[in-house]
Structures are given as C-alpha cells and as structure tokens.
C-alpha cells in the first residue's frame, strides 16, 4: 500500500493563509502572549487521526522490531519531518540514527563455578545455571554479595543496595519482588511492579557498580527448582527456523554478565554465610527491611553468546534554537513508533494507541514548531524511537550515543499512549523528578483544560523517558493509562479519541515552548530523594551514590 498524503500541501496553504490573516489584523494582545499561537492551532485532531491511521494500518503489520514494516513506518515519519521543513540532527546526514540489535545464541563455553576456601562448586548448564537472555558475553570473577531482591524502590521506601558496597562485585538476588502475593499496599500486592523485571534489576545493579548478576528463584512463591530455560538451543526439541532472542548491543558500560541458578545452588551459596534461602526471603517479606550482606564466595561466570547484527532506526528531526547563547541546549520530544508485530503471521497487533498515538503527537508537535513563526531559544530534537517494546532499545542506545551532549539536554518529554480512556484526562509522570517541569504542565493546562493526574508514576520505568532519567535528564511522561486493548489485536484506530490527542499534544507543545524559552533549567531529583538539594541549587541535581561512580557519561 502506497501512502498518498495530501496533508502536507494543505498544511502549508493553511499556515500561509493564517499568517496573512494574522499579519493583516491589528494585534489585540501583547506579542509575548501569542508567540506560540500559530503552532498551537496547527495541531489538529484530523491530522493526528490521519497519522495514526497510516501507522496503525494492517499493512504496517504491527511495526515489530526489526521488520520491513518498521522500515516503512520510519520512512513515513522521515517524510513527514522533511515535508515540515525540519532538519537532520547535527552529525547525521539523514533523519535516521542507526543502532545495532543482535539475535543472540548460546555459544560455548558457558561455565559457572563458585569457590569457598576449601570447596569448589562446578555448575552444570541447564540443570544448575542458565545464562540470562540479557547477559553480556565474557568472563567475570569477583566476590558475591547478596542483595535481597536487587531492588531500589524509594517510592516504597525500600532499597536493597542501601548501606552496601557492590562496586566490582557480583550480586546475588531473588527473582520477583517482596510480598508478591500479599494484598497489602507494599509493592502493589499481587500485581507485579516494574521492579520485578530482570531488565530493571540488571540496570539497577549496573547503576550500583556491580560487574555480574546471579538470579535465584525466590522459594516462597515459586516452585521451580531449576533455572528457567530461555534459550531455544537448550530445548530438547528444537524448532526449525526458531530465531534467537533479540537484544540491544549495549555499550560496555551497560554490559553485565548474568546467570540464573537453581535453588540448590542458591541454597548452597547462602549456606556458605550461615543463611537460609527461604528464611531470608521470609524475613525480608515480613519486615520489608533489606537484608543485604557479602558472602565468603568467589564466583566466576563465563557466558558466551554470539549473534547476528541488524541495524534499526531511530528517526530524529532537529529545529535550531533562536538564541545563539542557548541554542546549544536542547529539549527532546519523543515517542516510540514500534509495536509488537503479529502472531502466527495472521493476527496483527496494530498498536494504534501503543504507540502510533504518541508518534502522531510528536509529528504534530514537530510540525507546529516548524510552522510557528517564532522559535524557542533552545534547540529542539524530535525523536521517534524503535525497539521500545523489546526493552527501550532505541532510547537506551540514544543516551549512550546522544546527538547533543546529555548535560546540554534540558528536558525530555515522552508521549506514550495518549489516545484512550476518559476523553478529557491525561496522566503525567515526573513530578518528583522535576517539580519545575511539572509546574509548567499545570500552567500550560490552563489554556487546554484537561484533567491532569499522576497515575502514570506507577509506569515510570516502562517507557523511553526512563533511559533519560537514568542519565539524570529531567523528564515528563504523558500517558492515558491502560485499557483492555493494550497489546491486543483490538488496539485499532477506530478506538482512538483524536480530540483528546489534540489536547494532549497541544499541552505538550506548550510545555516544550516554555522549557525551550525559560532562562532557568529545570532541576533533576532522583525518585524518592528530597526535592531540595543541600544548597538549594536547581539544575542537574545533587550528587548521589549512583553518580559517584562517574557522573554523566
């Protein structure tokens, strides 16, 4: 299917007419109250709907990463940026930032040994240990530290890493999270929080300086004795044509060697320190007090994975700022444009809300700034990320290969799912990360009239802004929350609310306008940290344990 888009020509004509009319009218308002007006008005429900209809069409086959259809979607986004007169970012010759993804398979050897002064435990692949799908390839040898569930969750007043130094260590942790089956409020009871994800556990371990990671299935709530097998090559019956897991080619600073061990091995490790696997978990769950401690064990983890690399595209557009002194700083507006593809090649997951809607918002906001006669003082980057559904691939790559230095990145505004549920409600996360940014949302909303909630905070680690948060960039996350069609074939264009998208996109546009023009930069605070620094400074936030190891890369 070819996409004939009459919209760009119409938009240029309309913008021209608007400019003529506005120029012919006496100014009724002070100039500084309407400098954003043209762009604001150009964001329309009709065009937002059109973009979603294109991106979520069956022919896009769910925009899986990687796929020919994802390429097609990237081409569409690129063409829209081009039509609107935006530029490729400095350092790029096109609107594409390519990044590598790799399909990994287990190579050999994979060896895990644990040493006590007088004992060596040799582990068997599959029975005693299985390399994590997220694991880097290589060998690491270090002392082992038990870190509970491996969770840092200040919003629940819980931190397994508090008071323990794991720099250069291999961390041993339970899977899942405390009180998994408890209906009390701690960790949201039976509903798993993002802290239970292996990816988040790994990133948290990295942030605290660990060099290796060992998972053991928590015994109180899970009967599995063996480590879970995640490698097709270890199956007894091989599927012909089975592809291996897809992963991002991480920077070395984000590479961690990790394995999952059996309960037998986990028990042995903890008994080396006189502790009991189940009793420890019981103690942590009952008190919600971390029980982290070093073990007298040296572990050597050798994991060998190899893979076939493919290149995937982030689509990036650039609008230079108007102020020579501030145009070297940038505000990023982003959304992921990938989804989850098809099932059995017949059932298509179109992902209209997730996240053709957010991508459409970025396109309209980019167009709005391009059309608006006045430009913000700071430069703007509009980024549509690939690979979000696979684990924030595109944004994780970007923050390690930024097109503007991260310490010059003033804020990142993320749109992910902005078209469903209550027609006049939006949820915005990031209030505790940057109160100034959030205040801009409330001020701008006086011109839009949405009901703004903060429920999206519970999904804070589940979209691309989180990659920027980890690098201490102030962020905002616009989201309209879950619905029954999420990650189902029924997430289709006929269910979106374009008028709601218009309001949210206009709100985001106004926030970006203000951030792009403000004389002060918004502050950054880690989630759960005191909102004021010791000296009352604003800016990039206070020094914390995670930044001591190196600060901004």
């Amino acid at each position: 299917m070819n996409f004939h888009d009459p919209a760009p020509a119409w938009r240029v004509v309309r913008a021209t007419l608007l400019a003529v009319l506005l120029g012919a009218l006496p100014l009724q308002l002070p100039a500084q109250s309407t400098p954003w007006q043209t762009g604001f008005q150009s964001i329309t429900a009709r065009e937002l709907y059109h973009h979603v209809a294109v991106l979520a069409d069956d022919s896009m086959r769910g925009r899986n990463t990687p796929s020919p259809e994802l390429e097609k979607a990237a081409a569409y986004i690129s063409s829209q940026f081009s039509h609107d007169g935006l530029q490729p970012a400095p350092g790029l010759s096109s609107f594409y930032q390519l990044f590598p993804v790799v399909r990994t398979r287990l190579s050999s050897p994979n060896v895990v040994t644990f040493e006590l002064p007088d004992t060596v435990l040799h582990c068997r692949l599959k029975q005693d240990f299985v390399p994590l799908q997220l694991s880097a390839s290589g060998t690491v040898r270090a002392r082992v530290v038990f870190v509970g569930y491996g969770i840092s969750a200040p919003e629940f007043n819980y931190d397994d890493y508090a008071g323990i130094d794991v720099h250069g260590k291999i961390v041993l942790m339970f899977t899942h999270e405390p009180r998994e089956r408890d209906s009390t409020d701690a960790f949201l009871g039976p509903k798993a929080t993002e802290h239970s994800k292996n990816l988040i556990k790994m990133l948290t371990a990295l942030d605290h300086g660990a060099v290796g990671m060992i998972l053991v299935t928590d015994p109180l709530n899970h009967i599995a004795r063996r480590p879970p097998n995640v490698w097709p090559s270890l199956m007894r019956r091989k599927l012909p044509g089975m592809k291996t897991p897809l992963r991002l080619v991480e920077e070395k600073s984000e590479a961690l060697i990790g394995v999952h061990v059996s309960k037998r091995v986990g028990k042995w490790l903890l008994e080396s320190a006189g502790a009991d696997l189940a009793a420890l978990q019981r103690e942590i769950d009952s008190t919600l007090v971390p029980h982290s401690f070093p073990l007298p064990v040296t572990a050597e983890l050798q994991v060998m994975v190899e893979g076939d690399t493919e290149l995937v595209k982030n689509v990036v557009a650039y609008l230079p700022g108007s102020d020579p002194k501030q145009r070297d700083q940038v505000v990023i507006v982003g959304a992921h444009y990938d989804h989850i593809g098809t099932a059995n090649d017949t059932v298509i997951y179109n992902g209209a809300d997730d996240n053709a809607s957010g991508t459409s918002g970025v396109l309209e906001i980019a167009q709005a700034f391009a059309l608006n006669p006045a430009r913000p003082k700071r430069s703007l980057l509009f980024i549509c990320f690939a690979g979000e559904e696979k684990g924030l691939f595109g944004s994780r790559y970007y923050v390690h290969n930024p097109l503007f230095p991260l310490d010059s990145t003033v804020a990142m505004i993320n749109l992910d799912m902005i078209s469903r549920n209550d027609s006049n409600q939006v949820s915005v996360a990031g209030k505790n990360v940057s109160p100034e940014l959030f205040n801009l949302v409330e001020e701008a909303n006086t011109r839009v009239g949405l009901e703004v909630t903060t429920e999206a905070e519970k999904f804070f680690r589940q979209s691309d802004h989180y990659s920027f948060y980890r690098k201490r960039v102030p962020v905002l996350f616009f989201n309209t929350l879950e619905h029954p069609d999420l990650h189902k074939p029924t997430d289709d264009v006929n269910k979106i609310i374009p008028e709601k998208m218009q309001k949210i996109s206009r709100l985001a546009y106004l926030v970006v306008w203000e951030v792009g023009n403000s004389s002060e930069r918004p502050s950054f605070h880690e989630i759960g940290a005191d909102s004021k620094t010791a000296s009352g400074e604003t800016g990039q936030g206070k020094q914390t344990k995670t930044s001591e190891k190196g600060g901004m890369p």
Partner: protein
Amino acid sequence: MSSIRRNSRYAGIVVGLVASAVLLSSCAHIKKPARRAEVGLVYKWEVGKPLRYEMKSHTEQNMEMMGQGITNKSDSYIQFTLEPKKVNPDGSAEVVFRLDSISAQIQSPMGNMNPDLKSLTGKEAVFLLSSTGKVLRTISGAENFEYQIAQGMKTNMSQNFSRVLARVPGRPVQIGEKWVIRDTTTTTQSGLDIQVVVSRNEQAVAKEVVAKIPCLKVHGEGEMSMDGSGQNPMAGQMSFEGDGRLTGDYWFDTAHGRLVKNQAKFELEATVAIAGQQNMTMPMESVTTLTATLLTEK
C-alpha cells in the same frame, strides 16, 4: 509502552498443556500384566451400574516473558458418568463417558477467559477400559468433546476425562506393600503432539472409610517429563518441554472395584518456545490440585 502483557493469549494454550499433564500423570500403569482378582485393586465393571463423579481442579501458573513474571489461575468443575455397556471376559469393558456438567474459568492479568463449554454438556464418548482403569482404545464419540479454549484455538478433552480414573495394579495388595508404575502416553493437545512419561512410587497405606464406603488408601509420589511440538492454530510452531513432580492419594472400594476418591497435586516446570515473528522462549511453572469424588450410584 514496554509492558509485558502478551501472556493472556498463550494462557489457554499452556493451561491446556498443563491440564493434559496433570490428568495423564494421575494415571498409573502397572508393570505386571493385569489379571482378574476377586479382591484387591481391580475395577469391576458391571452393566447397569453406572458411576457418577465430580472433579474439581485448580491451577496456578507463572510464566516468564522477557524477564517479567505473569500469573494465571484457572479453575474447573465437572460432573460425569461412567456407564459400562459391555463387560468382556478379561475384565475390560466398553464404558460410556457422559459429561453431565462443566464449567471453567481462567484468570490472567489482562482479564478472564471463559471457554464456551456449555455445548459439551450431555455429550458422550465410548471407551474400552481395562480392569486396571487404562483406556485401551476410544471406540466412538471423541469428536464430541472438541471446544474452543481461546480465540482461534480449539482442543479436545475426551482423552483427559477418560483418564480421570486412577490406574490400579489389578491384583491383591497388602497394607504397606509398594510398587512402581511407569507409563508413556502420547496425546494431542492444542495442536501439539505431547509425549508424557510418568514414574510413580505407590504404596497401600491403610484401610479408611470415605463417604461411608470402606476403602483402601493408596499413596503415590513420582516424577514425570513432557515433550511436545507441533503447530498451534493460534501461536504457530511451538515446542514444549517440562519436568514435574506429583503426589497424591486415592481411595479404592476393593469390594465393588470402584474408585471412590482421587486427590493429586502436580508441580510442573516447563519451557514453551514459539517460533515465528513473536519468537519467544517462555519458562513457566504451574501447580495443579485435583480432586475427583464418587457422587452417587445410579
């Protein structure tokens, strides 16, 4: 949004596989050949004496998708009748299995699934059962028990129901006596051909009265393994492997040669691999408890 919520469409597939494993593992297969015995653990089929049972099962299943755990729960309740139509000299019998009522529910983070099973009520199939409770062959009616478990996916439960009966040694046993049973069975579930290998250690524990019926209680513990592959209508090419542990008791009315009660718990650790664009390898674990009880004698 990066949210692991794809499991619900696979829940039915995996629950079906687990259900198959549970019901197959609750069967016994004697090492020694069956022979008629006036007393002891042997089924005595009698024409004109149907047996009515109820069975309740509960399964809790945890799947790992892209490093995040997701829990599904399922419950089922059935009532069925076994009615012998013809008894052979070797003690085997042509037995009509009739489904009197059935309900099932699957709960997942993305909502509930309620397979449409009402159409199965009243359906019948005829099996040739041995005096040890083994299904020797399906005579007719198996096609009557096909149903849709999820969108685009059908399965057939006829094999499962006919194997609810505990397998017995088919000979007299003494209190305290132990024996080992091994069984290899191949079944088709959700488009997959699955081979189940069971090894179970059993022991005659005691004489107990259940529902006013004098019974012999048998305790069993064992292990099983499952391997399967095939083309699932919904998910495409799939491969399945699992290892499990089972434990349970059954109470047998030796005087009348009938099962009175069967209780079992089954723990399974498995991996499901799905090819195609989704391309996932999903570890899972499940715990199933099952109770079958003789209701009345019609």
